[in-house]
């Protein structure tokens, strides 16, 4: 796990082996992954395949035996995080907004994420999807090169979710995102690269598929979308 | 033997030189010679031999005279069968370099340690009254387990048992090169009976000979314990229980105990001093420690040998 020559990828991992203590077969056997620098990418695969585990390894939160190198700070956020209870949402967000510039970003994000009317409530008084969004916003205010979003929008409705993804791509063109989601259409439409995680028995365990990387200005055609979706489903 | 009667005997305090006779009676087989198998139970501040005797938890016990009189005033069915100390060992220790006490009058203006609720409080108050010293003319200091305030010279006079702590504390002061002396209330005219042996009126009525045998063995034990030729052996026996006190000090304690128990002569060991008891009762009445006379003579049962 050394930071050798500056990698072109946001995160590189080679030769990863991992199993949970007590588990029979390894979860990852000789896995290698290169998350491209910049862009909105997906980590995709069926439930229980190891996405969250891999995400935590990529973020350096779980120790592993592979070689890992990163370009810049990597943050990992997940959908069941909570905020401290003694502050209102608004107070908390203002407190964690890193730089002065972040304050204006914050206002934009609050508006685009549709949480501006919740700001003087506590975290426990929000709906699940509101909690998801508030949590994501505070990570966006931080100093990161790569942000791993583990089901960070799982409880948000599709319309809002699309608006959020597009906002991210507009506002953070130079950062790398790794988005974990179970929505194949969304992933196919909005992601640049879809990293498909498969069982440890399959070789290679990881397949990278090109997504359509849609933005507000560049919607994608129904046919291309269907083709990509099929490609993803077949590769899994 | 199996025929031996099982007797529980509750002391007032821990086993030390003040219980020499009790230990000797047991260890030298004097109880056994009377057909008694006696368990000697150490006492303490939370122990109350009168309660235990009334409840039948103990057959005999040691209690101070003020406890006995207070118990009688509240109807406790107990009797006194022997008096262990002919002279009350309660004294106040002081440093003569700092404090001069030649008579009770000299207490005026002193800081005096007192155990509130203890018999030293009653004795002290009587002393003050007899010498016409008002409460405001002395400073009473509440005494607790440790002697730090006396050591730190915050208190002039500190109450203790002359024959027990008196020796130990004296030794410490001597080692530090400090002079010390004792103020004895007896000399200032206050006679207040100390420890005595009690049993229940019921046991005395139902098994007078058992009480007789116990008292006899106990008196013999005390006579043996107080005999100078037996002193070394007595000291060793006590040391078995009282390991914290070095043997030389126990010997010294024994010598002092002898003066208080075999007083004026060894023949007086165990003697119940009716006059002293009556004076004790009078003091307690006077000090409002009891609200009515108990006619102490009726509770005293000196048993002829």
């Amino acid at each position, binding site marked *: 796990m050394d930071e050798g020559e500056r990698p072109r990828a946001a995160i590189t991992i080679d030769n990863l082996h991992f199993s949970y203590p007590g588990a029979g077969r390894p979860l990852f056997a000789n896995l290698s992954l290169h998350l491209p620098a910049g862009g909105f990418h997906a980590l995709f695969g069926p439930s229980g395949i190891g996405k969250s585990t891999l995400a935590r390894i990529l973020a350096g939160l779980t120790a592993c035996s592979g070689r890992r190198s990163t370009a810049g700070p990597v943050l990992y956020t997940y959908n069941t995080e909570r905020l401290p209870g003694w502050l209102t949402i608004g107070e908390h967000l203002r407190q*964690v907004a890193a730089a002065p510039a972040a304050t204006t970003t914050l206002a934009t994000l609050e508006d685009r994420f549709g949480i501006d009317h919740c700001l003087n409530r506590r975290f426990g008084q929000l709906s699940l999807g509101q909690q998801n969004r508030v949590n994501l916003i505070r990570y966006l205010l931080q100093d990161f090169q790569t942000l791993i979003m583990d089901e960070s929008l799982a409880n948000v409705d599709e319309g809002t979710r699309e608006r959020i993804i597009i906002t991210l791509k507009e506002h953070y063109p130079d950062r790398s995102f790794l988005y974990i989601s179970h929505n194949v259409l969304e992933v196919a439409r909005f992601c640049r690269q879809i990293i498909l995680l498969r069982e440890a028995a399959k070789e290679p365990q990881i397949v990278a598929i090109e997504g359509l990387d849609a933005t507000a200005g560049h919607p994608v055609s129904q046919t291309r979308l269907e083709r990509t979706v099929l490609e993803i489903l077949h590769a899994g | 033997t199996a025929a031996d009667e099982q007797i529980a005997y509750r002391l007032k305090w821990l086993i030390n030189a003040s219980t020499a006779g009790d230990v000797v009676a047991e260890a030298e087989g004097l109880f056994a010679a009377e057909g008694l198998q006696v368990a000697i139970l150490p006492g303490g501040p939370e122990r109350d031999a009168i309660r235990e005797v009334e409840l039948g938890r103990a057959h005999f016990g040691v209690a101070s005279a003020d406890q006995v009189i207070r118990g009688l005033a509240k109807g406790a069915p107990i009797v006194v069968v022997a008096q262990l100390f002919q002279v009350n060992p309660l004294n106040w220790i002081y440093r003569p370099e700092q404090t001069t006490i030649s008579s009770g009058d000299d207490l005026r203006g002193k800081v005096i340690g007192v155990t509130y609720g203890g018999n030293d409080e009653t004795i002290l108050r009587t002393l003050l009254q007899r010498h016409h010293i008002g409460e405001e003319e002395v400073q009473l200091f509440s005494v607790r387990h440790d002697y730090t305030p006396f050591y730190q010279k915050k208190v002039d006079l500190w109450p203790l048992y002359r024959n027990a702590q008196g020796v130990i504390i004296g030794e410490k002061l001597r080692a530090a090169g400090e002079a010390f002396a004792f103020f004895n209330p007896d000399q200032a005219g206050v006679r207040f009976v100390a420890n005595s042996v009690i049993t229940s009126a019921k046991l005395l009525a139902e098994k007078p000979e058992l009480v007789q045998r116990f008292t006899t063995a106990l008196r013999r034990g005390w006579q043996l314990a107080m005999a100078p030729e037996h002193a070394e052996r007595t000291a060793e026996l006590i040391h078995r229980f009282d390991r914290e006190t070095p043997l030389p000090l126990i010997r010294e304690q024994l010598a002092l105990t002898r003066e208080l128990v075999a007083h004026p002569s060894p023949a007086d060991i165990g003697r119940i001093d009716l006059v002293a008891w009556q004076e004790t009762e009078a003091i307690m009445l006077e000090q409002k420690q009891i609200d009515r006379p108990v006619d102490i003579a009726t509770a005293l049962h000196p048993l002829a040998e």
Partner: protein
Amino acid sequence: MLANRLLQFLLLYFLAIGGLLAMKYLLGLSDYVIPGVAAMATAFTEMAAIYLGDLLDSLRVALLGHALSLLLAAGVGILASRSTALGSLIRAAAYTVQTYPIVAVAPIIFILLGDGLASRLLITILVCYFPLLLTTISVLTEPVADIEHFFISTGRNRWSLQVAIRLYENMGKLITVVAGSATLAMVGTIVAEFVAADAGIGFSIRKALYQSDLAHILVALFLVGIWTSIYLGVLETAGALIEKKWRNPAGGG
């Protein structure tokens, strides 16, 4: 809550008195072993006012001692929950001090602090702080991962913040223990007065004890019980209000 506590105490107290009296009359015990109803009534009328004065004196110390215990437990708990060598040493010190019975350390306390309020307070605190400390440590050493993750990841995990998070998340538990420890403050004060003071209800109990005066002791225990129930009831009510104000009902699933 308060009225409840008082009623419960009265019920328990008179049950206990009833038990003692039943024992007395069944076994035919003298007033010395267990005082009769008349003796108890006399003791009450004679001593209640005096003891009430003593008790109020003690209560002052108990309140102050309780407050200081809370501060001490919070302070030591916070320091001790740090996983540094110093934190570990402070924790060891807090535990070691607690191991020693007050009576054994009393001489040292008197040498250090002399007589008077300081010693009395210190002893109260020594009796009262430990359960609070244990709770504080147990709360402060257990991570609240789903809240702390963000602060750790973003390098914001100041130590004070971590303490705040863990205390806040366990507020209900803390309030229960803080209110409950009120009784320990009371017992600490009484013990202190027992070994150290020449004032307060503990001192009065000691005097009664020396004279084997159970009737007086029962009067004192009655007053102690009443006032502790009140103190406890007030704290519990206050705790419930705090919880209600600070913690809002959780949002929908």
